């Protein structure tokens, strides 16, 4: 769902002219406090409703989790990770969705001009008008978020409810959350809220509580409070970044290839100019 009113900050597969506005907008962010999540899944239902997504069959995998992974028609999944820490059972719930990275790997990998855009407020969005459904964004994403929608042939993921954000409303999931573990505002405010909550947790005994805002991708517009500094327990990558493969491919191999192609053209024309065509000597007749 591409916004018609938000200015674009960055656009996929575009070499120039990606910015569509000069205003400086505050970055928005969603705050997720995993310690106060009760696993009610109201956010899942609200997401499905607001975004008019198809009802997706749930699967019973021996856990309360709705399904194993995000799907093209299911953009917000509460992960129910059961684990034992210091001899105590822990039920670690975490909101899995697009993290809206400041440096999005999906946007870096996308080959279709304008198919993935980052608005001036930091929201990363798929523009279905331009998406060609190649799935490169899924390869570029360190969080395994974008999913291919077989019906549309396009990629689909959380939009951070950009259609609500552009008129000043909070995302549907935040609106629905009954415990206040979700919050929405400017990135600065949400980080401040997170730091405050982390301090509270530390004071109450969770010494290694952190605010997950991975700098490897320039920070994310979904900041998550974790009471254990072990993101992998929550199915989160410890140090996500735009992968080396995507960087080498886009920033080294591709420019080198373009240069090699043009150099070859120049070499061919230069050769023809200098040596001309290779003609047989004129004096040779039929005799061998």
């Amino acid at each position: 769902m591409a916004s018609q009113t938000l200015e674009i900050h960055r656009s996929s597969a575009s070499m120039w002219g990606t910015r569509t506005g000069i205003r400086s907008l505050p970055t928005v962010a969603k705050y997720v406090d995993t310690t106060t999540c009760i696993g009610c899944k109201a956010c899942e239902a609200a997401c499905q409703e607001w975004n008019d997504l198809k009802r997706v069959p749930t699967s019973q995998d021996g856990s309360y989790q709705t399904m194993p992974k995000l799907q093209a028609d299911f953009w917000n999944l509460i992960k129910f990770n059961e684990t034992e820490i210091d001899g105590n059972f822990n039920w670690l719930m975490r909101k899995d969705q697009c993290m809206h990275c400041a440096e999005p790997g999906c946007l870096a990998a996308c080959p279709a001009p304008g198919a993935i855009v980052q608005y001036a407020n930091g929201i990363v969005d798929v523009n279905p008008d331009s998406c060609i459904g190649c799935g490169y964004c899924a390869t570029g994403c360190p969080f395994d978020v974008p999913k291919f929608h077989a019906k549309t042939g396009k990629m689909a993921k959380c939009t951070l409810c950009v259609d609500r954000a552009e008129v000043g409303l909070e995302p549907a999931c935040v609106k629905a959350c009954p415990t206040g573990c979700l919050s929405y505002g400017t990135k600065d405010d949400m980080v401040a809220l997170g730091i405050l909550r982390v301090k509270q947790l530390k004071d109450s005994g969770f010494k290694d509580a952190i605010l997950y805002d991975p700098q490897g991708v320039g920070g994310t517009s979904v900041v998550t409070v974790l009471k254990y500094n072990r993101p992998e327990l929550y199915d989160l990558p410890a140090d996500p970044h735009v992968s080396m493969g995507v960087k080498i491919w886009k920033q080294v191999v591709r420019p080198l290839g373009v240069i090699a192609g043009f150099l070859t053209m120049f070499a061919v024309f230069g050769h023809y100019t200098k040596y001309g065509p290779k003609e047989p000597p004129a004096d040779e007749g039929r005799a061998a």
Partner: protein
Amino acid sequence: MTVVNDAQPAVITARHTDNVVVGDEIIRHRRITRLMHWSVALTFFIALFSGMPIWTPLFAWMAALVGGMEVARIIHPYAGSLFFIASVFQFFHWLGDMRFRSDEKGAWKPSKLMAYMRWEENTTDEGGKFNPGQKVFFFAVCLGAIGLLLSGLIMWFPLYFPRIVRELSILLHDITFIFFLIGIITHIYLGTAAEPGTFRSMTRGTVTRRWARLHHPGWFRDVDKKG
């Protein structure tokens, strides 16, 4: 009219036979060879024009040639698969003619390569139907076609492969393509403007005696002896 009458026997013979002299011409590629070559070329160019806009936005305009980015994304894997199939036929069709000969060992000396590029090589050199450069190009294309196929299949069905495999296959696909890009520009140049009389061997199927003696003296001698 006389031109047409003179031409007919060579063209007719070129339908089924090659490496023979007919009148003033020598049949270099019989019809099946030319069909095969143009199958490879056509599928290559469809894949090229549908792949390059996806490769970099610098060539996004090429998408218009195939009907837009979505169409490019849909037809590229099919064109690529057909290119591979055509390349397999080409491999078996030309393999016999592409074996390296003992008299070609010196061809890779830099001085020899430079002499060739300056059109200075010794025309009394032996050699087969194809020169060492053509043979290397042939095997490089075959190897490249395998690389493009394997990486392309992974990119076609990305959901079935782990992320690192997808990344590596995109890299492999790109690097292989860059060699193809350099190769195809050079190949077209040598086959048309650089060496007049070559292109007709892939259209009409025939070359002149002068052309054959200049470019493939060993082959010319063998064919001429046969009569």
